[in-house]
């Protein structure tokens, strides 16, 4: 074993650990010129790390930041970055677990819808950077003329007990902030349309149809799922809305002239 290398690696690990631990002592083995304040020098790196990660979360969760304000957001994001730092340098997916973190973050307990707004923002950025086309349709094992509901885009659904789409819109600059009179639950559907990722309101029937499309269920099975999710709904109307939104399509895989 190369002893100098092992020592250098250990020193670097101590250095890295001290960057994210506010109570850690200065790591050994570093120096600054005579007369300079070494602690202040190390604090530059500490600040670069935390401000860089907090900024990355701020870019991904602007509506969450708008709801709680910058100082609260920075405190929550700093805590998150210390507990769950990014695993790799692609920061676009840093914060995938921020919604769960916020749901369990005691200071945010008074803002129970915050985690759901964060879920919208996680889905939105994931879709923004997602593939431009769906993966090619796998060839079904058995032939048949059954009409199936299939995905037409990468779609995300966020289910909430709060009017989360309205709250998100108010904090994303899409509608003026105002008191919310109707606190009925809202579910969000997100998908990418060219350069944008719109956030649409959907009900349980539509969510069930999207779920059915992922499993490529038959039209009959998808309608049954929609009715089970939302008794008394109009599954045809719900499906039409989803088709018009570009979220799902209806496909009969082995009809002559299709899927050639």
């Amino acid at each position, binding site marked *: 074993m*190369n002893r*100098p*290398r092992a*020592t*250098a*690696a*250990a*020193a*670097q*690990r101590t*250095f*890295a650990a001290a*960057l*994210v631990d506010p109570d850690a002592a200065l790591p050994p*083995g*570093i*120096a*600054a*010129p005579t*007369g*300079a*304040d*070494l602690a*202040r*020098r*190390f604090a*530059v*790196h500490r600040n*670069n*790390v935390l401000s*860089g*990660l907090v900024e*990355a979360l701020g870019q991904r969760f602007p509506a969450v930041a708008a709801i709680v304000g910058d100082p609260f957001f920075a405190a929550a994001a700093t805590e998150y970055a210390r507990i769950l*730092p*990014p*695993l*790799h*340098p*692609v*920061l*676009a997916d840093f914060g995938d677990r921020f919604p769960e973190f916020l749901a369990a973050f005691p200071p945010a307990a008074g803002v129970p819808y915050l985690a759901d707004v964060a879920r919208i923002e996680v889905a939105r950025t994931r*879709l*923004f*950077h*997602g*593939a*431009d*086309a769906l993966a090619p349709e796998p060839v079904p094992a058995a032939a048949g003329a059954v009409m199936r509901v299939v995905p037409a885009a990468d779609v995300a659904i966020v289910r909430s007990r709060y009017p989360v789409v309205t709250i998100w819109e108010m904090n994303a600059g899409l509608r003026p902030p105002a008191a919310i009179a109707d606190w009925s639950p809202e579910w969000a559907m997100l998908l*990418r349309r060219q*350069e944008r990722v719109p956030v649409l309101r959907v009900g349980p029937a539509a969510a069930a149809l999207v779920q059915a499309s992922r499993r490529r269920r038959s039209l009959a099975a998808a309608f049954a799922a929609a009715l089970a999710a939302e008794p008394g709904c109009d599954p045809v109307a719900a499906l039409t809305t989803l088709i018009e939104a570009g979220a799902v399509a209806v496909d009969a895989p082995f009809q002559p002239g299709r899927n050639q």
Partner: protein
Amino acid sequence: MPLPIQPTAAGVAFKPEHGADALADPRPCGFLEVHAENYMGAGGPPHALLERLAERYPLSVHGVGLSLAGPDRLSRSHLARLSAVCRRYAPALVSEHLAWSGIAGAHLADLLPTPYTRPMLRRVADRVDAVQQALGRAILIENPASYVAWETSRIDEAEFLSELARRSGCGLLLDVNNLHVSAVNLGLAPGPYLDRLDPARVGEIHLAGHAATQDERGHPLLLDTHGAPVDAAVWRLYRAALDRFGPVPTLLERDRDVPPWAELRREVDRAAGMLEDAARRRLGRAA
């Protein structure tokens, strides 16, 4: 067909908010540089915009995440992502840093200081070699902005970089602002530093702004913020670098308080003018 970068090209670190202006500018600047890590998603608007820009501008891909001087193994998955970006855009230049940016399981999003020792030199050279093998091309390695030094360091930075280039065949990206920041913070002499670099190895220059502060003891402390116009001292050092190296593709970086495209262009054009002067001086000397 990817566009080449001329030695006298002055470019800018691309920000998405400048997309429309960059596409519409009747007088495109010499090249654009992007952070590789911002284009590692599968698709979407960032790639759509960069593909349109690549039709008008030569590209440089600048990585910030390989952690070449890190204590862990080189990340094969990150190298694969970098390879994918390079395949997609076939950039004229590819660069990374003499730095490390975390440990396994924690990417710390900062460029951390390297112990300048013989074992580390071998380690970084091996990794640069592995990266170049994977990409099928030479890369440029950038000098860091330093705030602290390792007590174990036995080689000065310019010598470390020169030896790294000799061993691995990589080129060097001289960040003149980083050199100025490190020189003030660590008490180095930038002139001898430039003299120690092999002109044939310097393939790109970076310019940026910094913040001048003092620590509690009154000692100067420069912060590499990329948040201000290029400082007069950095322009002077840039002129000295051009005198030594001749015209080298030069990039202006601005990441904070980003001004409008037209204002950035004025700084880019100043660098372009100095590059043209350097090319003329070189011709005059040859004649």
